């Protein structure tokens, strides 16, 4: 019975391994978005401008959510197959959340790293004292936006899938293939 509770994790990890090319696509998107916004924020001298900071935070979250939702769309057919083979909605939703969360976190970490390196490079090119913020501030901001984006994206993905799971399995398999 203990193993039964591991089923969603098994499905998520299996899926994560086997659909690696899709995951890479999403990670690349997340990395680009995160890096872009980190650089942009830095150039705008972020913390001294709270409106810009909040705006960047929202935009970064939307970007991450959109990337994760895209991943959800692609897994709709797999959900149909899982259901046809006897998986419950709960198992599918949990495995999807785990998959999206792993994808989001990994993508964000790489994105933040690239963002920090890019920021450091830009600051070297500009005159001393141009920035009012320090690297730890950037890291904090980037992490906050990523965590928010990952949570919103994963929850939205699960919600969309939950709604779609009400469709008859036969329709999912015919329409999504």
């Amino acid at each position, binding site marked *: 019975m203990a193993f039964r509770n591991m089923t969603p994790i098994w499905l998520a990890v299996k899926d994560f391994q*086997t659909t690696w*090319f899709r995951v890479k696509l999403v990670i690349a998107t997340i990395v680009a978005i995160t890096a872009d916004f980190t650089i942009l924020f830095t150039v705008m001298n972020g913390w001294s401008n709270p409106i810009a900071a909040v705006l960047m935070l929202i935009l970064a979250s939307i970007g991450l959510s959109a990337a994760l939702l895209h991943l959800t769309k692609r897994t709709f057919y797999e959900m149909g197959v899982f*259901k*046809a*083979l006897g*998986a*419950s909605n*709960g198992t599918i939703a949990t495995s999807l959340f785990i998959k999206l969360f792993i994808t989001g976190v990994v993508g964000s970490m790489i994105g933040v790293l690239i963002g920090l390196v890019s920021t450091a490079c830009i600051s070297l090119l500009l005159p001393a004292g141009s920035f009012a913020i320090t690297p730890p501030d950037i890291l904090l901001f980037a992490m906050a936006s990523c965590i928010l984006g990952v949570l919103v994206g994963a929850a939205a993905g699960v919600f969309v899938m939950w709604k779609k799971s009400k469709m008859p399995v036969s329709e999912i398999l015919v329409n999504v293939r």
Partner: protein
Amino acid sequence: MSDDFALRVEHVKKTYNGYAQKINIFSDITFQLKSGAFVAVVGPTGCGKTTLINLIAGLDRPESGNIFIDGVNITKLPDNKVAELRGRKIGIVFQVHNLLPNMSVYENVELPLSIQGVNGKERKSRVKEALELANVSSYAQRKLTTLSVGERQMVALARAMVTHPDIILMDEPTEYLDPFTTDMVLSFIKSSNILRGKTVLVTTHRSKVTKAAERVIYLKKKLP
């Protein structure tokens, strides 16, 4: 809750929503299958053969009527219960396989057992058994995308058998196959039915399959 019949379909009605009007697939279909029966369903394209398989497997819901699997009325069960029962009691071979292309043959066959939470050791031995039964062991580690249609069909048969289901539903399993692979599929069906006592319901256009079946159900296409 056992039953003399492995499967009972009682007064089932099914319609689909068309663009202008409802399309009536079945208005009242009734039949029973005894445990260990091998029955073929034939009829012209569009008469509802796939719909019938979907309804019996609980992949779709009828408008009215009842469907009993081993005495359990699946039309009255919630989705999750139907899925659980389907996973345990029914093996399905779809017309288009519905295998996951990014997984290997082994992983595809292993999937139903993982969903059921079967432990690793048991899972391994059952997958090995199913692969050998369908004669696909030699390419167990290959990706689905590298296989021919016939090879994929044999993998789909292995996946349907891996959970040791009581009932096997097959939707035109020989549709896109050459005569040699058709014979392989047919011998697989017969051995599952005779040697392993599985109840088999297969939809088909092939006379070879209908001749092998002990009973044939004819579906007529309803005129609009």
